[in-house]
């Protein structure tokens, strides 16, 4: 077959190669954890620097962090609603920051300069495990939000407005995490692959617009992920009349 005739690491890309860590019986993708620790460490350092000395007249980093906070609050408030958005704002914000930092870190930092024995460093969100983990957390969150806010009445949502909707609504509980995880995974991986292939074929100039496009998609994907997560939670806590 055509696909089989291609080498797995075409265009000097190592697709589907991982740096395995073996701990007892479990195997981990080491490169995902390495990059995520570096990026999250940078994020936490950035945030603790910005919140070290909080003033009433914000300056410098505090200004940026307050803008970010305001942005996340608006996102959570518009999707979840005035009543419970406060409880879910940290989760939505963390999803946004995690996905954003992962995507941009994967696109901006020249990880390829660091050689690993197997696999290569890159955006943590280009690994299916990460995106499925995030999507499942979103699923758990909206179930928890619905049940804790409305109790058993949450399941009225499945037969609202008519019982005919029941199979579709049940199906939705599976398609929501599936679409969330595969959208993010596909976009980020595709971006990395496109940039990698272009860099291999035409190392000069040509990859630059694609890299900018990649940065744009990365930011948009973070926003989409956080917005959809907030929307699902808002849908679960919404009161039907």
């Amino acid at each position, binding site marked *: 077959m055509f696909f089989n005739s291609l080498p797995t690491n075409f265009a000097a890309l190592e*697709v589907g190669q991982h740096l395995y860590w073996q701990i007892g019986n479990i*195997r981990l993708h080491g490169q995902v954890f390495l990059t995520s620790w570096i990026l999250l460490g940078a994020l936490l350092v950035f945030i603790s620097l910005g919140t070290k000395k*909080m003033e*009433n007249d914000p300056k410098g980093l505090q200004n940026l*962090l307050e803008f970010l906070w305001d942005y996340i609050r608006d996102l959570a408030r518009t999707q979840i609603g005035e009543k419970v958005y406060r409880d879910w704002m940290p989760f939505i*914000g963390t999803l946004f*920051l995690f996905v954003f930092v992962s995507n941009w870190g994967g696109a901006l930092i020249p990880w390829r300069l660091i050689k690993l024995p197997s696999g290569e460093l890159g955006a943590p969100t280009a690994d299916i*495990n990460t995106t499925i*983990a995030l999507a*499942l957390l979103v699923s758990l969150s909206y179930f928890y939000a619905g049940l804790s806010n409305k109790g058993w009445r949450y399941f009225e949502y499945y037969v609202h407005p008519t019982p005919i909707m029941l199979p579709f609504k049940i199906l939705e509980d599976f398609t929501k995490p599936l679409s969330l995880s595969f959208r993010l995974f596909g976009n980020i991986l595709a971006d990395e692959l496109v940039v990698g292939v272009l860099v291999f074929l035409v190392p000069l100039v040509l990859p630059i617009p694609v890299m900018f496009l990649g940065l744009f998609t990365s930011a948009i994907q973070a926003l989409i992920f956080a917005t959809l997560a907030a929307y699902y939670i808002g849908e679960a806590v919404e009161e039907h009349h």
Partner: protein
Amino acid sequence: MLAFDFFGATEGGLFDINATLPLMAIQVVALTYILNSLFFKPVGNVVEKREKFVSNNIMDAKNKLSEVEKLEADLLSQLQNARSEAQKIVSEAENESDKLYKEALELANNEANASKEKARLEIENQTSSAREQLFKQADDLSELIVNRLILEK
């Protein structure tokens, strides 16, 4: 199996799901708690404190403005009262002076009439006394003439 061969399914591959998934989920949950205490809570406190401060100040300013407007209206009505009061006083004074003038005029007229009458009476008296004197003189003269005529005879 074609796609999975391409992605290197058996060992690794793009869709190689393993313990990375739950560990990453735990990591994200931990990150949520860390970010909540490090970022969302402190920044939220500061921002909300400021929002409260600003809205309080706006309320204060609004209250003060309404107070100022009330005072302004008060002053305006006082001014209007004072103005009408002044008008009243002026018109009263005008009436008073008018009255006084009329009284004085009447008094003067009366006085003038009285003196005129007196003068007239005096003139009449004098005229009548003068007439009487004239009559007397005429009598005297006529008597004198008569006497002289008699004597000449």
